[in-house]
């Protein structure tokens, strides 16, 4: 990253730090680069610092230190130019329930200075694409969760930004709603080469949708790479061999199969790690037959991000572990405010 700064469509974080009230360390120095047209996933449990990072990169929160560059612009120095070039979809619902879907989009279009001559076609097109056309003139508070999310997405892209930030965009949606939402995001990326930065704590979502992933935990990035690379770092595939009856002598036999890097035992089954499980399965089966051991079954598993998370953080992926750093900071602020009010 020496020489000229990355420009169009890039998102660059250089050692971003956010500390609330001098003591709550929400983000402890994260650095990464998102390339144009890429879907980059920020994966981590609640409270890991995902939303805080998004807020710093979208000019909603001032970083304690470090630099955020978005589309070639320094977020701290040129917040309004950055805002003009990006779209943001927040994790909470921010659509105006007292306005119709169409009015919500028209307002967003005016605030992003979409040319008046294009406004109607743009809004109609988005309503159609997001399948809220029929409900366009109903108040947004009557929409279902999935429709509201699609409306939020439409409001975030009404000005056709090069870069889109999605903060836990599918939180609380059912699988169908999540699939529907991602369908539109993938279409946008395909049609407009949009760079997408998405935070999520759904492992499967990160695995399926993201080109590259950063795993963040306690405000620090612990691993980055494509989902495949991250899983490869675990040492390859896992082949599970389940004998018909206990076979204590099978372990050394399996360990001797060329390509198998380790053998473990779990509930009477053998877990073998190997670089390329698919091509090794015949040899493994042959070794069992040669040793006179009958097989109940053999299964092959590519390691999941669950295991990746376990590997890099040393913990199971935790869903809810008390308040996030942001929540804690807000709470501290509220307590202070109440205290001030009483004096």
């Amino acid at each position, binding site marked *: 990253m020496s020489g000229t700064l990355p420009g169009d469509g890039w998102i660059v974080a250089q050692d971003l730090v956010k500390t609330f009230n001098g003591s709550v360390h929400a983000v402890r120095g994260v650095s990464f680069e998102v390339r144009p047209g890429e879907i980059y996933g920020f994966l981590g449990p609640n409270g890991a610092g995902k939303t805080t990072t998004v807020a710093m990169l979208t*000019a909603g929160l*001032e970083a304690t230190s470090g630099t955020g560059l978005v589309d070639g612009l320094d977020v701290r120095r040129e917040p309004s130019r950055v805002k003009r070039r990006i779209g943001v979809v927040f994790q909470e619902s*921010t659509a105006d*329930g007292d306005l119709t879907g169409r009015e919500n989009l028209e307002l967003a279009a005016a605030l992003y200075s979409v040319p008046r001559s294009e406004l109607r076609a743009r809004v109609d097109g988005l309503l159609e694409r997001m399948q809220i056309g029929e409900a366009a003139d109903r108040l947004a508070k009557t929409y279902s969760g999935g429709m509201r999310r699609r409306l939020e997405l439409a409001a975030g892209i009404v000005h056709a930004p090069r870069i889109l930030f999605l903060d836990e965009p599918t939180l609380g949606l059912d699988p169908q709603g999540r699939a529907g939402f991602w369908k539109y995001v993938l279409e946008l990326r395909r049609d407009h080469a949009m760079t997408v930065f998405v935070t999520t704590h759904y492992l499967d979502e990160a695995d399926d949708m993201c080109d590259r992933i950063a795993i963040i935990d306690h405000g620090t990035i612990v691993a980055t790479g494509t989902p495949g690379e991250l899983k490869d770092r675990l040492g390859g595939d896992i082949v599970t061999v389940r004998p018909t009856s206990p076979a204590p002598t099978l372990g050394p036999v399996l360990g001797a199969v060329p390509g198998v890097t380790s053998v473990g035992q779990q509930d009477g089954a053998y877990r073998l790690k190997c670089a390329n499980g698919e091509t090794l399965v015949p040899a493994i089966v042959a070794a069992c037959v040669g040793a006179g051991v009958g097989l109940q079954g053999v299964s092959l598993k590519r390691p999941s991000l669950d295991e990746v998370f376990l590997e890099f953080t040393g913990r199971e992926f935790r869903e809810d572990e008390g308040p996030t750093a942001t929540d804690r900071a807000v709470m501290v*602020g509220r307590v202070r405010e*109440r205290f001030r009010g009483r004096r």
Partner: protein
Amino acid sequence: MIRETIALTKRELLRLARNPQAIATSLLLPILYLLLFGQGFNLGNLAGRGLPPGALTALLIGAPTYFSYFAAGMVGFVAVTATLFIGANVIFDKLFGILKRISSTPASAASIFGARLIAGSIQPIGLAFLVLGLSIALGHLGLSGLDVTASVGPVGALEIVLAVVILSVMFASLFLAIGFSIEQPQTYFAIVNAINLPVLLTSAALYPWGTMPAWLQNVASYNPVTLAVEVIRLNLFAAAPSYYAYSAGVYLLGLLGWAVAMNLIATVLARRALGPRH
């Protein structure tokens, strides 16, 4: 900037129009005051029971009846009570994430604040003229009503309009300043209650000037509600000018000073609330 302000003002007005309960509630208060308090609290009856002629007009510094005096005061009263909700709306918009969305767009803090100020001032201005109209109408229905004893020319009418507009903008700014600085609705309403009553009760909106102790008269002369109400009374009542120290223009200037100061404070607080968090 202008387009953003218009779009945001339209949003505020649409929301207001879609909330008929809020409109009904804001209408109810002045109507009850005019129909019940104004009718029941009739100092004219006291005059009939032994006050020397002219004494009541002196107590009411030029107004022919207490209702007339009080109706002009109610114009100031509604400017305070009807601007309350716009500060509360800011807090609800924060809680529902709507303000977060708006501030994530390139819309400037000035247009976000300006739109709320415009939309928030429209209702009290409308209510103020409704109070004046209704008060005059009541007099023609056999009830106590507003008795306009001066002939109101175009300059007088303009002065009344200006007083109403400036007072509404001033209180809209005050409540927006509080709304942008507070996070919780209950804190907002506690603060607003702590401001509202003292402001109204240290003004000359309701009490006959002549019955107020000198110290209260002193406090009241600087109160923005008093300043606006003085402009209105000076223009509506022929006998009023002889009781007032200054002309309507001077009171208007004082009121404008209040409005400008309050607006500056509110702008600073709104800008801080709408900029990046720290």
